[in-house]
């Protein structure tokens, strides 16, 4: 067997069914590389070897039993049975940590499984551990993790994107074929883009959010990372669908065809014939990397050559999205994060003996700078006298942004293609002191969250050696069509030279002398003045 970490999940499924590989072998191989390289990448906040191997043994027993029962029983196994997966560290796994990247949840142990966890167990997937993230999923670079940043395997001095940067880097570095992330304004698609992997934010309501730490409840959605469309589709299939425990999960059937994306490149490519693709001119914004624009235009031209019909469209309210988002998301966050009061769980400081002072101390010590900024913004936007000017106004703008997209679907387009991120992975620390510059990185992804639409990022080559992501936007519940489009694009670019490349600095992560991202960040803060977050409390 070739190096098991280079296999796609669907290839693992074949080997597991034929008996050429065991889940224990596959899991051991992935654990070994994740454990070895995590110092240099900091993609994982927890790797649970013992639990993973126990799950692998259970999967091996299930597969052996199915093999004894015959071909039908084998076919009924989910393709992820026995396959290692990683979960962003805001997904509850009973008895395990769920820090959400925050000090305030250090030491917290989840008393129950999230629905996505339960569904992955049902499918027989092997949960390897928990991946790094921006604190409470607030950030675009994973630098806002209380447990140190994650490095990008393509360039260890650069960010992996965020907030699901740990999941994206783990998949890019072959630590797991698939990982779970969450996306509130681009937190799956943007790191997917920057790490050169597939990442999908499904339609709002597609995946139950029971058991994940909430950020902004009208925007949050769980979704898959994979190294190709088929693996992402398999993970989406495993976790999707209505759940009694999340009233916002929609009673929309999950298509079984998600597991039947074509394996043949030519068959996949045929999907593009006659497909109508819209190219929104507002997504090619001033300040975007010319290399990103070039790759996106090339990708679209390639699809056109394969038979797609591409037309430019206008989404006229795009430029208002950022402001609307940065009112709505912090407002909802300030409300959701009110639960962190040190009374029922989490960090607590009861030294003052006076309850309000204890709240102030607990929350002041437990939240990091970006979370504090957002809670402040949200509290301000919802406070007396400002509700109409900010929150209500933003919700009205949200209606306009949604109408822009509705008009594109009404005009008969099958999908919208755009850049995922206007820039490639930026250097560690580059945007840390300028929140607005950091927020701008999500300009092309957050309108979809406002509109509730599914979106995915698929690798579309490199610009100056760094991955560029093509964003595919679909109508509500059109994930299957989007994945077919993504699979078609893989088909027509299967022989492109960049497809064969592995992340450029992955080899360095095997070297114990390579600095960790935490060490890199310490060097940066040591050389820059004004790192005063630890100064004396008033």
């Amino acid at each position, binding site marked *: 067997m070739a190096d098991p970490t280079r296999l796609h999940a669907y290839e693992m499924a074949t080997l597991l069914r034929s008996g050429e590989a065991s889940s224990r072998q596959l899991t051991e191989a992935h654990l070994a590389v994740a454990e070895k390289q995590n110092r240099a990448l900091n993609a994982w906040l927890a790797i649970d070897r013992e639990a993973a191997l126990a799950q692998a043994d259970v999967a091996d027993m299930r597969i052996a039993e199915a093999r004894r029962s015959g071909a039908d029983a084998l076919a009924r196994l989910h393709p992820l049975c026995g396959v290692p997966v990683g979960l962003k560290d805001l997904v509850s796994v009973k008895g395990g940590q769920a820090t959400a990247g925050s000090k305030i949840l250090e030491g*917290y*142990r989840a*008393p*129950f499984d999230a629905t996505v966890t339960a569904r992955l167990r049902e499918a027989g997937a092997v949960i390897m551990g928990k991946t790094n993230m921006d604190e409470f999923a607030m950030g675009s670079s994973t630098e806002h993790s209380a447990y140190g940043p994650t490095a990008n395997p393509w360039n260890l001095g650069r960010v992996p994107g965020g907030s699901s940067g740990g999941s994206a880097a783990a998949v890019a570095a072959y630590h797991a074929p698939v990982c779970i992330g969450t996306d509130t304004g681009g937190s799956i698609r943007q790191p997917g883009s920057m790490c050169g992997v597939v990442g999908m934010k499904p339609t*709002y309501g597609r995946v139950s959010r029971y058991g994940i730490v909430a950020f902004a409840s*009208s925007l949050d959605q769980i979704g898959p990372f994979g190294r190709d469309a088929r693996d992402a589709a398999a993970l989406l299939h495993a976790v999707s669908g209505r759940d*009694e425990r999340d*009233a*916002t999960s*929609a009673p929309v059937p999950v298509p079984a065809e998600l597991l039947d994306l074509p394996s043949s490149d030519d068959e996949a490519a045929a999907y593009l014939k006659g497909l109508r693709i819209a190219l929104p001119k507002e997504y090619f914004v001033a300040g975007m990397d010319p290399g990103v624009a070039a790759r996106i235009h090339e990708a679209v031209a390639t699809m056109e050559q394969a038979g797609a019909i591409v037309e430019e469209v206008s989404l006229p309210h795009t430029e*208002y999205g*950022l*402001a609307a988002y*940065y*009112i709505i998301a912090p407002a909802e966050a*300030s409300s959701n994060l*009110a639960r962190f*009061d*040190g*009374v*029922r769980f*989490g960090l*607590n400081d*009861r030294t003052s003996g*006076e*309850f*309000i*002072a*204890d*709240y*102030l101390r607990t*929350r*002041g010590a437990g*939240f990091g700078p970006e979370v*504090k*900024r957002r809670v*402040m913004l949200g*509290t*301000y936007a919802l*406070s007396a006298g*400002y509700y109409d000017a900010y929150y209500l*106004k933003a919700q*009205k*703008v*949200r*209606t*306009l942004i*949604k109408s822009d997209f509705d008009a594109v679907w009404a005009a008969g387009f099958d999908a919208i293609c755009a850049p995922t991120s206007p820039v490639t992975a930026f250097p560690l620390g580059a945007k840390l002191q300028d*929140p*607005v510059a950091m*927020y701008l990185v999500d300009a092309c992804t957050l309108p979809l969250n406002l*509109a*509730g*639409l599914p979106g995915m990022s698929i690798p579309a080559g490199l610009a100056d050696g760094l991955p560029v992501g093509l964003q595919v936007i679909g109508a*509500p519940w059109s994930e299957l069509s989007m994945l077919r489009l993504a699979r078609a694009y893989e088909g027509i670019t299967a022989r492109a030279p960049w497809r064969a490349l592995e992340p450029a600095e992955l080899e360095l992560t095997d070297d114990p002398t390579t600095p960790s991202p935490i060490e890199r960040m310490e060097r940066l803060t040591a050389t820059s003045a004004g790192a005063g*977050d630890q*100064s*004396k*409390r*008033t």
Partner: protein
Amino acid sequence: MVHSGLASVRYHRGMANLTRADVEHVAFLARLGLTEAEMARLEGQLNHILEQYAILQTLDTEHIPPTAQTIELANILREDVVQPSISVDEALSNAPERSASGHFVVPAILGGEGGA
């Protein structure tokens, strides 16, 4: 110390004009204990972010209804029957303080002088 006496502070009505007193008041509303340095930095950063919001005022939205959620689901109901749930012990497993009778021990909120 950030304290409840700040409730009387008046907001400045202009957008993107948050004073230091506003920052202190909002921090208190949000129950965030901030250092002097944090408040100084937030005053600048929040004002910079609020400036980005000004673009919204250029849009006429008088007749546009607000969108609070994007999928057409309403009034999701179920039969009122007992469902399996976690045990009291599990629910209390992360509590900093619990009583012998199986309750969270919460700070006293009556009789003190706190409150906004």
